[in-house]
């Protein structure tokens, strides 16, 4: 079994936390994991990309080859379309519909969402709305983990366990908000 995930978003959207939660869950379930991150300059409000590779045998490359990702999971619609060349012909794209407009030439949003809908397997989720309902717009990234959870080769309980661990230091309320966000995303994409 091999399951490559492209995680996309904009600096500050919590892409690395998403990557860490899925990676820890996969490892807990006995999978091999390689998790390549972007640090430094690109994190300053620019496009952020993380490569997450899960497999039941040792993984050689830290980077995902073209055409082999099973999933693109994106926090932002424009960013979701940037890495299509990595998505396998059977692969799925799950993205939040909420744009981060911090460039002057940001394309027409409906046009972008229309492009996403043309892909064979895509799922659009209003991550921000669900996160707000769960208690905080900052939990949008956990809504997106929930929306992708149906497709991930890890158990829901394991993901929830690592959401708890990740946010435990910030208090019970933050943990609850993020768990609610995760469940709302999961339900929305059911």
């Amino acid at each position, binding site marked *: 079994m091999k399951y490559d995930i492209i995680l996309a978003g*904009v*600096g*500050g959207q919590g892409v690395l936390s998403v990557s860490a939660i899925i*990676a*820890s869950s996969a*490892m807990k379930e006995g999978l*091999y*994991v*390689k*998790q*390549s*991150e*972007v*640090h*430094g*300059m*690109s*994190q*300053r*409000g*620019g*496009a952020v990309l993380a*490569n997450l590779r899960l497999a039941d045998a040792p*993984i*050689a*490359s*830290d*980077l*995902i*080859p*073209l*055409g*082999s*990702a099973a999933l693109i999971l994106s926090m932002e619609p*424009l*960013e979701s*379309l*940037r890495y*299509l*060349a*990595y*998505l*396998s*012909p059977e*692969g799925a794209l799950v993205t939040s519909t909420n744009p981060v407009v*911090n*460039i*002057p*030439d*940001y*394309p027409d949003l409906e046009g972008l969402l229309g*492009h996403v809908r*043309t*892909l*064979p397997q895509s799922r659009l989720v209003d991550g921000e709305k669900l996160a707000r309902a769960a208690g905080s717009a900052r939990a949008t990234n956990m809504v997106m983990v929930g929306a992708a959870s149906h497709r991930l080769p890890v158990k829901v309980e394991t993901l929830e366990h690592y959401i708890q661990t990740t946010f435990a230091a910030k208090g019970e309320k933050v943990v609850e908000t993020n768990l609610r966000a995760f469940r709302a995303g999961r339900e929305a994409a059911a």
Partner: protein
Amino acid sequence: MTDMVLLGDEAVALGAVHAGLTAAYAYPGTPSTEILEYLVRYRQKHGGPHAAWCANEKTAYEEALGVSFAGRRAMTSMKHVGLNVAADPFMNSAIVSINGGLVVVVADDPGMHSSQNEQDTRYYADFARIVCLEPANQQEAYDMAREAFDLSERFKIPVLIRLVTRLAHSRAAVRVRDARPQNPVRKPPVASSWVLLPANARRQWHDLLGRQPQFVEWSESGEFNHLRLNEERRDLGVITTGIARNYYVESLDELGYQPSHLHIGAYPVPVELMRRLLGHVSRVLVLEEGYPFVERMLRGIVAPDIEVLGKESGAVPPDGELTPDIVRRAMGLRERRGQEIPGLSLPNRPPQLCAGCPHADSFDAIKQAIAGFESAVVTSDIGCYTLGALPPYSAVESCVCMGASVGMAKGASEAGLKPALAMIGDSTFLHSGVAPLMDAVAANTDMTLLILDNETTAMTGGQPTILPPSRIEKLVLGLGVDPAHCHVITAHHRHTEENRQLIRKEVEYPGLSVIIAVRECIETLKTKKQG
């Protein structure tokens, strides 16, 4: 034996701790920063080993060298261009007889994700005639860090570990082993081996050259360099170094056979293993991250009688980072394709200043202050404020290396570009801007230096600046800058108009002015508030 999930950077750091590290020193720089960050956290939790940020890579290197002098194990870590700053102690520390193990970790950035060039540190190791290790994965990063200290003490040389971005910033499980105790304090047994007066230096250099065959013999021994010949096939041989092996292995199954393969993880290159491979095959493909270091050795200046494929033959692009797909093509495998939407073109999203960043307010004030001058120049430096070169600011005109803004503004002013302004961050100023400011004081150059003091090293994630902000003004005045032309202002849009007026006044003054624009980085402020 325990498994831990570590970044390549963290694996090196923990390997060093388990090798009996006494102290580590560094200046932050992507992609090396997480090495010392890990050690600083480790120290907070366990009370040691000593780990500290330094003014720059040169001071970090020299502090590590002092630990080695005392007989104990030391590490210094930096990004590739940081070794340029530390090149003086680096080259000369190869000549002394290293006492306690000294390991120099340098993280290269092929593809220039966060750097101004993609220089390949393996050349530095060769230049200094020392041993270099190049891990291919997180486990090797840990194992090689441990081994590097033993090698350093055995060969009495600093040992270099070369990382690249994709290993430094990728996580995987690492099996760690028991820690070795630290060395006791013990001065070098031969005092003159550390006093590089010409007479001693000649002896030491001669001795280092004389030990080169030992290094090659070790490199041939197969600990990190492995040759596997395919006795049935003599057409293709492959040489991989470092993480290039991962991309090769990724696609190997599809090749349908195993070419003869030499993997190089340690330098000097294993000459005899290379000769055996070359004697066995008619073509050799060289896959290495960075410059064609091994490939150029193979080619030499006499045309080899076998075909060499690599960066110089065009089989692999000469610049940028390797990817699994570049390596596939070089292996002759078909290109893989993903999904696409015909005609879709997306705008880029370059990095940008955070909302509320004090630098943005400084850019506004400066742009307004120099409006109307025909031959004004604004030089800049390495940090978040380099983003001021991009729209919407388009406020600065140079970014070359740490501290260059100050000396370049002096030169540009002396060449006739006026007014000349230099813009530098607090941490970069303390790293490399103080010495050129002394030159400007000595010459009373007609220029204005703006120190953007956000009280942190922001671009690399908010490491502490070596001096608190309150001391920068005293430092500047101590260098002899005229107090009448040294000002501290607040970088906030509420003050843009008064700042504009002050900058305009100092720009018009025909001598040296220094303006320190202070306001804390919005990111570190946020982190503090979140507690």
